[in-house]
Protein backbone atom coordinates (compact mmCIF):
# COMPACT_ATOMS: atom_id res chain seq x y z
CA UNK A 1 0.00 0.00 0.00
CA UNK A 2 1.12 3.49 -0.81
CA UNK A 3 -0.63 6.59 0.50
CA UNK A 4 0.10 8.66 -2.61
CA UNK A 5 -1.31 6.08 -5.03
CA UNK A 6 -4.38 5.58 -2.81
CA UNK A 7 -5.09 9.32 -2.79
CA UNK A 8 -4.53 9.56 -6.55
CA UNK A 9 -7.03 6.78 -7.13
CA UNK A 10 -9.58 8.27 -4.73
CA UNK A 11 -9.22 11.61 -6.53
CA UNK A 12 -9.76 9.98 -9.90
CA UNK A 13 -12.90 8.15 -8.71
CA UNK A 14 -14.31 11.37 -7.24
CA UNK A 15 -13.61 13.17 -10.50
CA UNK A 16 -15.57 10.48 -12.34
CA UNK A 17 -18.52 10.82 -9.94
CA UNK A 18 -18.41 14.60 -10.12
CA UNK A 19 -18.78 14.44 -13.89
CA UNK A 20 -21.96 12.40 -13.51
CA UNK A 21 -24.43 14.99 -12.19
CA UNK A 22 -27.39 12.66 -12.23
CA UNK A 23 -25.71 10.07 -10.02
CA UNK A 24 -24.67 12.77 -7.55
CA UNK A 25 -28.24 14.10 -7.48
CA UNK A 26 -29.69 10.61 -6.99
CA UNK A 27 -27.23 9.89 -4.16
CA UNK A 28 -28.23 13.03 -2.30
CA UNK A 29 -31.93 13.35 -3.10
CA UNK A 30 -33.25 9.77 -2.98
CA UNK A 31 -32.55 9.23 0.75
CA UNK A 32 -34.30 12.54 1.55
CA UNK A 33 -37.34 11.62 -0.53
CA UNK A 34 -37.61 8.22 1.14
CA UNK A 35 -37.24 9.66 4.63
CA UNK A 36 -39.81 12.33 3.79
CA UNK A 37 -42.17 9.64 2.52
CA UNK A 38 -41.70 7.65 5.71
CA UNK A 39 -42.39 10.67 7.90
CA UNK A 40 -45.54 11.32 5.91
CA UNK A 41 -46.75 7.68 6.20
CA UNK A 42 -46.34 7.84 9.97
CA UNK A 43 -47.62 11.40 10.26
CA UNK A 44 -50.23 10.32 12.82
CA UNK A 45 -47.79 8.17 14.85
CA UNK A 46 -44.52 10.15 15.07
CA UNK A 47 -43.17 7.71 17.68
CA UNK A 48 -42.96 4.98 15.01
CA UNK A 49 -41.10 7.36 12.69
CA UNK A 50 -38.65 8.12 15.49
CA UNK A 51 -38.10 4.35 15.76
CA UNK A 52 -37.67 3.48 12.06
CA UNK A 53 -36.27 6.72 10.65
CA UNK A 54 -32.79 6.49 12.18
CA UNK A 55 -32.44 2.84 11.19
CA UNK A 56 -33.10 3.81 7.58
CA UNK A 57 -30.48 6.57 7.83
CA UNK A 58 -28.06 3.67 8.37
CA UNK A 59 -29.45 1.45 5.62
CA UNK A 60 -29.57 3.95 2.71
CA UNK A 61 -25.87 4.75 2.47
CA UNK A 62 -25.08 1.06 2.77
CA UNK A 63 -27.35 0.06 -0.13
CA UNK A 64 -26.47 2.98 -2.41
CA UNK A 65 -22.72 2.60 -2.00
CA UNK A 66 -22.94 -1.17 -2.45
CA UNK A 67 -24.60 -0.83 -5.85
CA UNK A 68 -22.48 2.07 -7.09
CA UNK A 69 -19.22 0.42 -6.08
CA UNK A 70 -19.95 -3.02 -7.45
CA UNK A 71 -20.94 -1.60 -10.83
CA UNK A 72 -17.95 0.79 -10.93
CA UNK A 73 -15.48 -1.97 -10.11
CA UNK A 74 -17.01 -4.33 -12.62
CA UNK A 75 -16.62 -1.63 -15.26
CA UNK A 76 -12.92 -1.40 -14.41
CA UNK A 77 -12.62 -5.14 -14.98
CA UNK A 78 -14.52 -5.28 -18.27
CA UNK A 79 -13.05 -2.10 -19.79
CA UNK A 80 -9.48 -3.29 -19.27
CA UNK A 81 -8.53 -0.34 -17.07
CA UNK A 82 -8.00 -2.68 -14.13
CA UNK A 83 -5.70 -4.93 -16.19
CA UNK A 84 -3.75 -1.86 -17.22
CA UNK A 85 -3.60 -0.42 -13.70
CA UNK A 86 -2.34 -3.68 -12.26
CA UNK A 87 0.50 -3.65 -14.81
CA UNK A 88 1.61 -0.32 -13.27
CA UNK A 89 3.10 0.25 -9.79
CA UNK A 90 -0.43 0.63 -8.37
CA UNK A 91 -1.11 -2.10 -5.80
CA UNK A 92 -4.36 -3.95 -5.17
CA UNK A 93 -4.55 -2.34 -1.74
CA UNK A 94 -4.21 1.14 -3.27
CA UNK A 95 -7.05 0.33 -5.64
CA UNK A 96 -9.37 -0.93 -2.88
CA UNK A 97 -8.50 1.82 -0.41
CA UNK A 98 -8.84 4.46 -3.13
CA UNK A 99 -12.41 3.40 -3.81
CA UNK A 100 -13.25 3.14 -0.11
CA UNK A 101 -11.88 6.63 0.48
CA UNK A 102 -13.70 8.20 -2.47
CA UNK A 103 -17.07 6.70 -1.63
CA UNK A 104 -16.46 7.40 2.05
CA UNK A 105 -16.16 11.09 1.12
CA UNK A 106 -19.38 10.89 -0.90
CA UNK A 107 -20.99 9.24 2.12
CA UNK A 108 -20.07 12.16 4.37
CA UNK A 109 -21.95 14.45 2.01
CA UNK A 110 -24.90 12.09 1.72
CA UNK A 111 -25.11 11.55 5.48
CA UNK A 112 -24.98 15.29 6.21
CA UNK A 113 -27.81 16.01 3.77
CA UNK A 114 -30.01 13.05 4.79
CA UNK A 115 -29.53 13.58 8.53
CA UNK A 116 -30.17 17.32 8.31
CA UNK A 117 -33.33 16.64 6.30
CA UNK A 118 -34.56 13.99 8.78
CA UNK A 119 -33.91 16.10 11.86
CA UNK A 120 -34.82 19.61 10.72
CA UNK A 121 -37.44 19.01 8.04
CA UNK A 122 -39.10 15.79 9.16
CA UNK A 123 -38.71 16.48 12.88
CA UNK A 124 -36.89 13.27 13.78
CA UNK A 125 -36.37 13.19 17.55
CA UNK A 126 -32.76 12.37 18.43
CA UNK A 127 -31.82 12.05 22.10
CA UNK A 128 -28.11 11.52 21.49
CA UNK A 129 -25.65 13.68 19.54
CA UNK A 130 -26.63 14.22 15.90
CA UNK A 131 -22.99 14.14 14.69
CA UNK A 132 -22.81 10.54 15.87
CA UNK A 133 -25.63 9.69 13.44
CA UNK A 134 -23.42 11.05 10.66
CA UNK A 135 -20.41 9.05 11.83
CA UNK A 136 -22.39 5.79 11.82
CA UNK A 137 -23.91 6.60 8.42
CA UNK A 138 -20.43 7.11 6.96
CA UNK A 139 -19.23 3.83 8.47
CA UNK A 140 -22.26 2.11 6.87
CA UNK A 141 -21.45 3.66 3.51
CA UNK A 142 -17.85 2.49 3.64
CA UNK A 143 -19.15 -0.94 4.64
CA UNK A 144 -21.37 -0.91 1.55
CA UNK A 145 -18.37 0.06 -0.60
CA UNK A 146 -16.20 -2.70 0.87
CA UNK A 147 -18.86 -5.38 0.37
CA UNK A 148 -19.58 -4.02 -3.12
CA UNK A 149 -15.89 -4.37 -4.05
CA UNK A 150 -15.98 -7.94 -2.74
CA UNK A 151 -19.23 -8.82 -4.54
CA UNK A 152 -18.00 -7.48 -7.87
CA UNK A 153 -15.21 -10.06 -7.74
CA UNK A 154 -17.88 -12.73 -8.22
CA UNK A 155 -19.82 -10.98 -10.97
CA UNK A 156 -19.03 -11.46 -14.65
CA UNK A 157 -21.62 -9.01 -16.01
CA UNK A 158 -23.33 -5.85 -14.85
CA UNK A 159 -26.62 -7.78 -14.65
CA UNK A 160 -25.05 -10.11 -12.12
CA UNK A 161 -23.53 -7.22 -10.20
CA UNK A 162 -26.93 -5.60 -9.77
CA UNK A 163 -28.47 -8.94 -8.75
CA UNK A 164 -25.94 -9.17 -5.93
CA UNK A 165 -27.64 -6.22 -4.30
CA UNK A 166 -30.76 -8.16 -3.20
CA UNK A 167 -28.59 -11.23 -2.51
CA UNK A 168 -26.14 -9.41 -0.20
CA UNK A 169 -28.38 -6.70 1.15
CA UNK A 170 -31.96 -7.95 1.57
CA UNK A 171 -31.17 -10.81 3.98
CA UNK A 172 -29.25 -8.36 6.16
CA UNK A 173 -32.15 -5.95 5.96
CA UNK A 174 -34.67 -8.63 7.01
CA UNK A 175 -32.47 -9.76 9.90
CA UNK A 176 -31.23 -6.39 11.17
CA UNK A 177 -34.03 -5.98 13.71
CA UNK A 178 -36.01 -3.37 11.85
CA UNK A 179 -39.00 -5.59 11.03
CA UNK A 180 -38.87 -7.87 14.07
CA UNK A 181 -36.76 -7.16 17.16
CA UNK A 182 -33.69 -9.39 17.04
CA UNK A 183 -34.49 -10.85 20.50
CA UNK A 184 -37.83 -12.08 19.18
CA UNK A 185 -36.34 -14.06 16.28
CA UNK A 186 -35.85 -17.86 16.25
CA UNK A 187 -32.46 -18.73 17.79
CA UNK A 188 -30.76 -19.64 14.54
CA UNK A 189 -31.80 -16.41 12.83
CA UNK A 190 -30.75 -14.39 15.88
CA UNK A 191 -27.27 -15.95 15.74
CA UNK A 192 -27.03 -15.13 12.06
CA UNK A 193 -28.14 -11.56 12.72
CA UNK A 194 -25.49 -11.36 15.47
CA UNK A 195 -22.87 -11.91 12.80
CA UNK A 196 -24.17 -9.65 10.03
CA UNK A 197 -22.81 -6.10 10.03
CA UNK A 198 -26.03 -4.25 9.17
CA UNK A 199 -27.53 -5.40 12.52
CA UNK A 200 -24.85 -3.39 14.30
CA UNK A 201 -25.42 -0.38 12.08
CA UNK A 202 -29.13 -0.37 12.87
CA UNK A 203 -28.50 -1.01 16.58
CA UNK A 204 -26.13 1.94 16.69
CA UNK A 205 -28.63 4.25 15.02
CA UNK A 206 -31.39 3.15 17.42
CA UNK A 207 -29.16 3.71 20.44
CA UNK A 208 -28.29 7.23 19.33
CA UNK A 209 -31.92 8.26 18.91
CA UNK A 210 -33.07 6.59 22.14
CA UNK A 211 -30.41 7.56 24.65
CA UNK A 212 -28.49 10.72 25.30
CA UNK A 213 -25.52 8.76 26.65
CA UNK A 214 -24.91 6.60 23.59
CA UNK A 215 -21.19 6.91 22.96
CA UNK A 216 -20.03 3.71 24.68
CA UNK A 217 -22.57 1.34 23.10
CA UNK A 218 -22.25 2.94 19.69
CA UNK A 219 -18.48 2.64 19.94
CA UNK A 220 -18.80 -1.14 20.32
CA UNK A 221 -21.11 -1.34 17.29
CA UNK A 222 -18.67 0.75 15.28
CA UNK A 223 -15.82 -1.62 16.14
CA UNK A 224 -17.79 -4.54 14.66
CA UNK A 225 -18.63 -2.52 11.52
CA UNK A 226 -15.01 -1.47 11.02
CA UNK A 227 -13.95 -5.09 11.51
CA UNK A 228 -16.27 -6.10 8.67
CA UNK A 229 -14.97 -3.29 6.48
CA UNK A 230 -11.39 -4.51 6.91
CA UNK A 231 -12.39 -8.14 6.35
CA UNK A 232 -14.34 -7.32 3.17
CA UNK A 233 -11.49 -5.19 1.79
CA UNK A 234 -8.93 -7.92 2.45
CA UNK A 235 -11.13 -10.63 0.90
CA UNK A 236 -11.96 -8.29 -1.98
CA UNK A 237 -8.30 -7.63 -2.75
CA UNK A 238 -7.83 -11.40 -3.01
CA UNK A 239 -10.33 -11.42 -5.90
CA UNK A 240 -8.17 -8.89 -7.78
CA UNK A 241 -5.62 -10.81 -9.79
CA UNK A 242 -2.68 -9.32 -11.64
CA UNK A 243 -2.50 -12.40 -13.82
CA UNK A 244 -5.70 -13.68 -15.39
CA UNK A 245 -6.30 -16.75 -17.58
Amino acid at each position, binding site marked *: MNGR*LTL*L*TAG*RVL*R*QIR*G*DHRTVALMLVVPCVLIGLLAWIYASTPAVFDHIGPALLGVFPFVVMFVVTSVATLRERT*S*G*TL*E*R*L*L*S*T*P*LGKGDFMAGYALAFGAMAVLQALVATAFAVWVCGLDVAGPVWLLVVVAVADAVLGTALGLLASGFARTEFQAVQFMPAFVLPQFLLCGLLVARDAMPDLLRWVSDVLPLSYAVDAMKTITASSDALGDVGKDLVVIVGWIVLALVLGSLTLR*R*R*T*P
Partner: protein
Amino acid sequence: MVNKSYAVEVDQLRVSRGGRVVIADLSVRIPTGQVVGLLGPSGGGKSTFIRALVGVQVVESGTVTVLGQPAGSPDLRHRVGYVTQSPSVYADLSVEDNVRYFGRVLGAAEAAVQEAIDLVDLRAHAHDRVENLSGGQHSRASLACALVGRPELLVLDEPTVGLDPVLRRDLWDLFGRLAAEGTSLLVSSHVMDEATRCDRLLLMRSGAFLADTTPAQLLLETGTPDAETAFLALIDRAEATTRSGAGGGSAA
Protein backbone atom coordinates in the same frame (compact mmCIF):
# COMPACT_ATOMS: atom_id res chain seq x y z
CA MET B 1 21.21 -15.97 -19.23
CA VAL B 2 20.43 -12.31 -18.79
CA ASN B 3 21.59 -10.26 -21.71
CA LYS B 4 21.29 -6.50 -21.71
CA SER B 5 20.98 -6.31 -25.49
CA TYR B 6 17.64 -8.10 -25.41
CA ALA B 7 14.49 -6.35 -24.28
CA VAL B 8 12.61 -9.64 -24.12
CA GLU B 9 13.80 -13.21 -23.84
CA VAL B 10 11.18 -15.94 -23.99
CA ASP B 11 12.08 -19.55 -23.41
CA GLN B 12 9.73 -22.48 -24.01
CA LEU B 13 6.62 -20.48 -23.20
CA ARG B 14 3.38 -22.44 -22.96
CA VAL B 15 0.00 -20.80 -22.43
CA SER B 16 -3.50 -22.29 -22.35
CA ARG B 17 -6.67 -20.25 -22.38
CA GLY B 18 -10.16 -21.59 -21.80
CA GLY B 19 -8.87 -25.18 -21.82
CA ARG B 20 -7.16 -24.79 -25.20
CA VAL B 21 -3.42 -24.55 -25.82
CA VAL B 22 -2.88 -21.13 -27.44
CA ILE B 23 0.92 -21.07 -27.31
CA ALA B 24 2.52 -24.52 -27.21
CA ASP B 25 6.27 -23.94 -27.07
CA LEU B 26 7.59 -20.52 -27.95
CA SER B 27 11.13 -19.19 -27.67
CA VAL B 28 12.26 -15.82 -28.98
CA ARG B 29 14.60 -12.93 -28.31
CA ILE B 30 13.62 -9.33 -29.00
CA PRO B 31 16.45 -6.78 -29.26
CA THR B 32 16.43 -3.40 -27.49
CA GLY B 33 16.09 -0.04 -29.19
CA GLN B 34 14.15 -1.36 -32.17
CA VAL B 35 10.60 -1.31 -33.45
CA VAL B 36 9.58 -4.94 -33.65
CA GLY B 37 6.35 -5.78 -35.47
CA LEU B 38 4.19 -8.65 -34.26
CA LEU B 39 2.06 -9.64 -37.22
CA GLY B 40 -0.28 -12.49 -37.92
CA PRO B 41 -3.83 -13.65 -38.49
CA SER B 42 -6.62 -13.05 -36.02
CA GLY B 43 -6.69 -15.57 -33.20
CA GLY B 44 -3.03 -16.45 -33.75
CA GLY B 45 -2.04 -15.59 -30.19
CA LYS B 46 -0.57 -12.09 -30.55
CA SER B 47 -2.52 -10.61 -27.63
CA THR B 48 -1.84 -13.68 -25.53
CA PHE B 49 1.92 -13.34 -26.18
CA ILE B 50 1.79 -9.64 -25.33
CA ARG B 51 -0.14 -10.31 -22.12
CA ALA B 52 2.52 -12.82 -21.11
CA LEU B 53 5.24 -10.19 -21.66
CA VAL B 54 3.59 -7.60 -19.44
CA GLY B 55 2.84 -10.21 -16.79
CA VAL B 56 -0.96 -10.21 -16.78
CA GLN B 57 -1.35 -13.63 -18.40
CA VAL B 58 -1.33 -16.85 -16.41
CA VAL B 59 1.31 -19.00 -18.11
CA GLU B 60 1.55 -22.76 -17.83
CA SER B 61 5.33 -23.09 -18.14
CA GLY B 62 8.43 -21.50 -19.58
CA THR B 63 10.25 -18.31 -18.70
CA VAL B 64 9.63 -14.76 -19.88
CA THR B 65 12.42 -12.31 -19.10
CA VAL B 66 11.79 -8.62 -19.72
CA LEU B 67 14.59 -6.05 -19.40
CA GLY B 68 16.55 -8.65 -17.46
CA GLN B 69 13.80 -9.46 -14.96
CA PRO B 70 11.00 -12.01 -14.83
CA ALA B 71 7.89 -10.62 -16.57
CA GLY B 72 5.55 -8.89 -14.16
CA SER B 73 8.17 -8.17 -11.45
CA PRO B 74 7.37 -5.09 -9.36
CA ASP B 75 10.51 -3.37 -10.64
CA LEU B 76 9.26 -3.63 -14.23
CA ARG B 77 5.94 -1.94 -13.59
CA HIS B 78 7.18 1.57 -14.32
CA ARG B 79 9.66 0.44 -16.99
CA VAL B 80 7.17 -1.31 -19.27
CA GLY B 81 4.29 0.54 -20.93
CA TYR B 82 1.31 -1.50 -22.07
CA VAL B 83 -1.58 -0.58 -24.33
CA THR B 84 -4.34 -3.16 -24.45
CA GLN B 85 -6.04 -4.07 -27.73
CA SER B 86 -9.35 -2.42 -26.87
CA PRO B 87 -8.71 1.10 -25.52
CA SER B 88 -8.53 0.98 -21.74
CA VAL B 89 -9.15 4.48 -20.48
CA TYR B 90 -11.91 5.97 -18.36
CA ALA B 91 -14.67 6.97 -20.78
CA ASP B 92 -16.20 9.40 -18.28
CA LEU B 93 -12.99 11.42 -17.80
CA SER B 94 -11.34 13.90 -20.13
CA VAL B 95 -8.25 12.93 -22.13
CA GLU B 96 -6.11 15.11 -19.89
CA ASP B 97 -7.53 13.65 -16.66
CA ASN B 98 -6.87 10.14 -17.95
CA VAL B 99 -3.30 10.86 -18.99
CA ARG B 100 -2.65 12.74 -15.74
CA TYR B 101 -3.98 9.90 -13.58
CA PHE B 102 -1.97 7.16 -15.31
CA GLY B 103 1.01 9.53 -15.50
CA ARG B 104 0.99 10.26 -11.77
CA VAL B 105 0.61 6.57 -10.96
CA LEU B 106 3.78 6.05 -13.02
CA GLY B 107 5.49 8.97 -11.29
CA ALA B 108 5.47 11.28 -14.32
CA ALA B 109 5.64 15.08 -14.05
CA GLU B 110 3.01 17.45 -15.46
CA ALA B 111 5.28 18.31 -18.40
CA ALA B 112 5.26 14.66 -19.44
CA VAL B 113 1.46 14.64 -19.29
CA GLN B 114 1.22 17.56 -21.70
CA GLU B 115 3.90 16.10 -23.94
CA ALA B 116 2.10 12.76 -24.19
CA ILE B 117 -1.11 14.53 -25.26
CA ASP B 118 0.81 16.40 -27.95
CA LEU B 119 2.56 13.23 -29.14
CA VAL B 120 -0.76 11.57 -29.99
CA ASP B 121 -2.07 14.80 -31.46
CA LEU B 122 -5.00 15.22 -29.07
CA ARG B 123 -4.20 18.77 -27.92
CA ALA B 124 -7.45 20.09 -29.38
CA HIS B 125 -9.44 17.42 -27.51
CA ALA B 126 -7.50 17.45 -24.23
CA HIS B 127 -10.55 18.60 -22.27
CA ASP B 128 -13.12 16.41 -24.05
CA ARG B 129 -14.49 13.40 -22.28
CA VAL B 130 -13.16 10.24 -23.90
CA GLU B 131 -16.69 8.89 -24.51
CA ASN B 132 -17.28 11.84 -26.86
CA LEU B 133 -14.26 11.06 -29.03
CA SER B 134 -14.08 9.09 -32.28
CA GLY B 135 -12.77 5.52 -32.24
CA GLY B 136 -9.31 6.52 -33.41
CA GLN B 137 -9.09 9.39 -30.92
CA HIS B 138 -10.17 6.99 -28.20
CA SER B 139 -7.32 4.58 -28.96
CA ARG B 140 -4.83 7.45 -29.16
CA ALA B 141 -5.93 8.57 -25.69
CA SER B 142 -5.17 5.04 -24.53
CA LEU B 143 -1.74 5.23 -26.17
CA ALA B 144 -0.98 8.56 -24.47
CA CYS B 145 -1.61 6.94 -21.08
CA ALA B 146 1.27 4.54 -21.77
CA LEU B 147 3.63 7.08 -23.40
CA VAL B 148 3.34 9.38 -20.39
CA GLY B 149 5.44 7.05 -18.21
CA ARG B 150 8.33 7.14 -20.73
CA PRO B 151 8.84 3.40 -20.45
CA GLU B 152 11.98 1.61 -21.60
CA LEU B 153 9.82 -1.02 -23.30
CA LEU B 154 6.55 -0.11 -24.95
CA VAL B 155 4.19 -2.97 -25.79
CA LEU B 156 1.33 -1.93 -28.04
CA ASP B 157 -1.49 -4.24 -29.06
CA GLU B 158 -2.84 -3.03 -32.42
CA PRO B 159 -2.44 0.70 -31.75
CA THR B 160 -3.15 1.70 -35.37
CA VAL B 161 -6.44 -0.15 -35.86
CA GLY B 162 -9.12 2.13 -37.24
CA LEU B 163 -6.76 5.03 -37.94
CA ASP B 164 -6.54 6.84 -41.26
CA PRO B 165 -3.34 6.60 -43.35
CA VAL B 166 -2.07 10.02 -42.23
CA LEU B 167 -2.41 9.24 -38.54
CA ARG B 168 -0.93 5.78 -39.07
CA ARG B 169 2.10 7.31 -40.73
CA ASP B 170 2.45 9.87 -37.92
CA LEU B 171 2.28 7.17 -35.26
CA TRP B 172 4.86 5.00 -37.01
CA ASP B 173 7.09 8.09 -37.29
CA LEU B 174 6.63 8.50 -33.56
CA PHE B 175 7.54 4.85 -32.90
CA GLY B 176 10.68 5.31 -35.01
CA ARG B 177 11.67 8.42 -33.06
CA LEU B 178 11.10 6.67 -29.72
CA ALA B 179 13.27 3.75 -30.87
CA ALA B 180 15.99 6.17 -31.98
CA GLU B 181 15.93 7.60 -28.44
CA GLY B 182 16.51 4.09 -27.08
CA THR B 183 13.00 2.83 -26.35
CA SER B 184 12.26 -0.76 -27.33
CA LEU B 185 8.89 -1.26 -28.98
CA LEU B 186 6.80 -4.31 -29.72
CA VAL B 187 3.83 -3.39 -31.91
CA SER B 188 1.19 -5.87 -33.04
CA SER B 189 -0.77 -5.23 -36.20
CA HIS B 190 -3.01 -6.74 -38.85
CA VAL B 191 -1.96 -4.28 -41.50
CA MET B 192 0.81 -5.89 -43.48
CA ASP B 193 2.07 -2.74 -45.17
CA GLU B 194 3.01 -1.52 -41.69
CA ALA B 195 5.59 -4.30 -41.67
CA THR B 196 7.90 -2.14 -43.77
CA ARG B 197 8.01 0.42 -40.97
CA CYS B 198 9.47 -2.10 -38.52
CA ASP B 199 13.13 -2.87 -37.84
CA ARG B 200 12.27 -6.52 -37.23
CA LEU B 201 9.25 -8.72 -37.84
CA LEU B 202 7.73 -11.59 -35.96
CA LEU B 203 5.09 -13.41 -37.97
CA MET B 204 2.84 -15.37 -35.67
CA ARG B 205 0.32 -18.04 -36.55
CA SER B 206 -1.31 -20.65 -34.28
CA GLY B 207 0.86 -19.63 -31.35
CA ALA B 208 4.14 -20.11 -33.18
CA PHE B 209 6.45 -17.82 -35.14
CA LEU B 210 6.56 -18.51 -38.88
CA ALA B 211 9.34 -16.00 -39.25
CA ASP B 212 11.64 -13.87 -37.10
CA THR B 213 13.36 -11.65 -39.59
CA THR B 214 13.84 -8.16 -41.04
CA PRO B 215 11.47 -6.74 -43.67
CA ALA B 216 14.14 -6.82 -46.39
CA GLN B 217 15.12 -10.37 -45.65
CA LEU B 218 11.49 -11.47 -45.63
CA LEU B 219 11.00 -10.23 -49.18
CA LEU B 220 14.29 -11.72 -50.27
CA GLU B 221 13.58 -15.17 -48.83
CA THR B 222 10.06 -15.42 -50.17
CA GLY B 223 10.82 -13.76 -53.49
CA THR B 224 7.70 -11.61 -53.18
CA PRO B 225 7.21 -7.90 -53.94
CA ASP B 226 5.51 -6.83 -50.69
CA ALA B 227 4.98 -7.89 -47.10
CA GLU B 228 1.40 -8.98 -47.60
CA THR B 229 2.24 -11.41 -50.40
CA ALA B 230 5.27 -12.62 -48.43
CA PHE B 231 3.14 -13.31 -45.42
CA LEU B 232 0.51 -15.16 -47.44
CA ALA B 233 3.25 -17.24 -49.05
CA LEU B 234 4.63 -18.16 -45.63
CA ILE B 235 1.20 -19.12 -44.35
CA ASP B 236 0.47 -21.23 -47.42
CA ARG B 237 3.81 -22.96 -47.02
CA ALA B 238 3.11 -23.62 -43.31
CA GLU B 239 -0.34 -24.99 -44.06
CA ALA B 240 1.06 -27.29 -46.73
CA THR B 241 3.55 -28.77 -44.23
CA THR B 242 0.80 -29.17 -41.61
CA ARG B 243 -1.39 -31.01 -44.15
CA SER B 244 1.39 -33.29 -45.36
CA GLY B 245 1.80 -34.34 -41.72
CA ALA B 246 5.36 -33.10 -41.40
CA GLY B 247 4.46 -31.70 -37.97
CA GLY B 248 4.07 -27.97 -38.46
CA GLY B 249 3.58 -25.41 -35.76
CA SER B 250 7.09 -25.41 -34.35
CA ALA B 251 8.81 -22.08 -33.92
CA ALA B 252 10.89 -20.85 -36.83
